[in-house]
Structure formats: C-alpha cells, structure tokens
C-alpha cells in the first residue's frame, strides 16, 4: 500500500459523506480538499462529482487543479461527473474538461420507457480485462444517476446499455473513471472501490 492518504478532490459538489463512509468501511480514511500539496501527497485520488460540468471545471480552475490533475501519477478515479471531467468536454453547458481522455459527453435522448436522467441499477458489460473488475461477475448491477454519457472507446473497460451502449468504466494508465456510483452500488461497488485502492 502506498503511503499517504486517500484524497477526495473538492470540485464543488455536495454529497461527499457517502464516499467517505464507503472508504471507511474498506478501512481507509480520506481527506476532502482542493489543496495542491495534499493532493500530490495522496496514495489514491478520487474526483467525486455531483453537479454540473462547467461549475466543477470552474472550481478546479480556481484552485489550479485543472493543471495539476493531468500531471498526477498515482491511481486516480473519477466518479460520475468526476469521470466525465477526465474527458475533453461535455455538451452540458458546452464545458471544456480536462482532456486527459479523448471523447465528449453527450446528453441521453429521452424516449418512451427511457426517462432522463438514467436513474437506477444497470448491468456492467465487461469489454476488457482490468484489475478494477477483479472478482466482479459479468452483468453485475451497479447504480447510475446521470443525464450525460461518454461513448464507448478503446479506453472503455465496461459498458452499459441505456438505449445505446455507453462507457460505464474507463481506464487509461493511472486514470480511471466510473460513470456509476461504486459507493452506492452494494457489494459490487465495494469490490470495485477495493480494487481501486489495491492499485
């Protein structure tokens, strides 16, 4: 286990408690901060996200974190909006994001029987072998709450289907993203979080 704390990056969203508790259940304390030095010292960095992409990016920029995050070398996990921030941009308010991964988040189109936001439990379809999926059964259900999604790409480790296939779990070098909420996805989510902490 690397030295240093698990750090949750303050990107302006509320609702950090559920993630802190989920990490505590795995035996890891976590710090919620926008401080550059603290983030640099972390063993693992998590970018949580509830809210709007443009607001979150403005918050990161205000603290210089838009420059820091792409330079980080420890394992990083963006959750929900935090995952979308890793990509080039989002159609939500035409936000420009961190551009670490290629791709643009687009809004789901509502259709009969397919309300937006997607809210609820959907099945993960593995697309590549990855340590994050260690011990996770095929078609395991995880909890999603989102209106915007990334298309499947070569960085997609697992996808899910909501009228279209979209990226549910992504990885590129030390950067990872979960479109779902592992901290709210029961034992499956707990396993994925544990796998991340074991990286």
């Amino acid at each position, binding site marked *: 286990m690397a030295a240093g704390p698990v750090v949750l990056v303050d990107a302006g*969203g*509320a*609702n*950090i*408690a*559920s993630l802190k*508790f*989920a990490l*505590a*259940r795995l035996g890891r304390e976590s710090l919620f901060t926008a401080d550059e030095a603290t983030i640099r010292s972390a063993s693992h960095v998590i970018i949580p996200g*509830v*809210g*709007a992409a443009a607001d979150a990016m403005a918050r990161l920029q205000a603290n210089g974190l838009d420059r820091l995050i792409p330079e980080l070398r420890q394992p990083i996990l963006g959750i929900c*909006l935090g995952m979308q921030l890793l990509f080039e941009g989002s159609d939500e308010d035409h936000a420009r994001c961190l551009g670490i991964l290629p791709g643009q988040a687009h809004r789901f189109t*509502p259709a*009969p*029987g397919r*309300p*937006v*936001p*997607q*809210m*609820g*439990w*959907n*099945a993960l379809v593995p697309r590549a072998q990855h340590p994050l999926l260690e011990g996770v059964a095929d078609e395991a*259900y995880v*909890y*999603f*709450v*989102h*209106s915007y999604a990334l298309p499947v790409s070569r960085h997609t480790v697992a996808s899910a*289907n*909501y009228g279209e296939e979209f990226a549910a779990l992504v990885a590129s070098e030390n950067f990872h993203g979960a479109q779902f*909420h592992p*901290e*709210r*996805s*029961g*034992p499956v*989510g*707990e396993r994925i979080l544990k796998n991340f902490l074991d990286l």
Partner: protein
Amino acid sequence: MLTRRIIPCLDVRDGRVVKGVQFRNHEDVGGILELARRYRERGADELVFYDITASPEGRQVDRSWVNRVAEVLDLPFCVAGGIRSVADAEEVLNLGADKISINSPALADPDLINRLSRRFGAQCVVIGIDSLAADADWQVYQYTGDPDRTQAARRRTLDWVREVQDRGAGEIVLNCMNSDGVRQGYDIEQLARVRECCDVPLIASGGAGTEQHFLDVFEQANVDGALAASVFHKGLIDILALKRWLAERGVAMRLLEDPADG
C-alpha cells in the same frame, strides 16, 4: 438493461419509523438503522426516508440520523420532509443522502426547484406530489403530513408534473392519496396518465398490497420504481421474493442471492 426499482419508504418521526393509514393514526414499526439494514439485505434498490412531522410544523429538525444511515448503507437513499431551501438541501446531501425530495415547499415556492437543480444537478432533486382524484381529474394537495392543514394546492396534477420537469426536477414520486395505505393496488389509471407527460423517472406510491399490484404498475403504468411501506414493514411481502417473482414474469430486476439460501 436498467432495472425497475423496489423502494421501501420509511416514515420517520422522532427517530423511529412509523406508518399511518391515509396519513393518520401512526404506529411505531421499528428503528431507522434496523429497518434500513434489513431492507438492504432483502434487496431493496433504494430507500426513501420521509420525516413526516417536519414540513407541517415548520420546525428545525434533528437530521443526525441521516449521517448514521449513510454510514451503514451502501445503497442510494433519498430524504424527504422539511427541506425548504438550498441550505436545507445542502445539509441533507452533505450528511450523506443521495437525493432530496420536496413537496409542499415546492408548491409554495416553485422557483426552489430551479435553484436546487442548478446547485446540485437534476439528479438530486426529487419532487413528491400528493394527488387526489376529483371531478374526473386529479388535483395536487399540500401539507398532507398533518390532516388539519391538508389542503388543495389549486393545481391540476398533470400541469404540476409538467411544470416541475421544466423547472429541473430529476424524478417524480406520485403519491396517489385515494389508494394510499389501503393496499388495494396502485392507481394505475392516474399513473399511466402521468407517465405520458413525464420524461424523468416516475415512482409510484400508494396502494401496494400484493405482488400482483407491483406487476400491474410496472406493466400497465410503465413506472421506473414502485414505493411501498406497510407491506414491507409488516412483513406481508418479502422484497427478495417479490423481486424474484417479478423477474420470472419478465420485469427487469436486480436480483441478489438470498443469504438464507446459504
């Protein structure tokens, strides 16, 4: 495929879970954490906690229990009751709730929906609607937690459903007051009508009595989730058995292994 959700609703008063019949005559059915844990083990997809006394009495509520729920629960949960401002919502979300649900305060100040949605995102903002059949239509009621203050909100339910979506609601819980607490089935006709003008997730509430009622509301009203209280609290329906029964009949369900199966 996205699964349909089974959602136990826990009415909270003074730190205990209670259940009334048509909002009256509340009886104690257990501790908050004890019930939350039990429903998690039985495969609930989400929980709703509704502080039934907060909104009508206009008092400040002790919400420390929200933090204790977040500590033990690895499922999403929503807190309703007594949330009247962005600051109230922020407190509840920071304590660990995933969503906040507002009802009467949204009727008194509809712009609150816009402010909440802008601040936290639509996915956090659930609008609860208490609706009663009247004159071949449906009308919204407010302050339903207190029979002495319950009154018509002078809004058609279908109009309000459209308005709250325009203002940024991320989910609607429709509580059909005619059927609430009497376990004769969900109000399929009303829910199907609301579904037609609801592009966000729609949760049915009020009337669950049998497994068949859940099947009917998913098949005939195409709701995303079904909320129920007394049938679960009283042990009349086991969530795990219900979800298996629904899955056998073609309803998409997240199934868990039954710990009792070993």
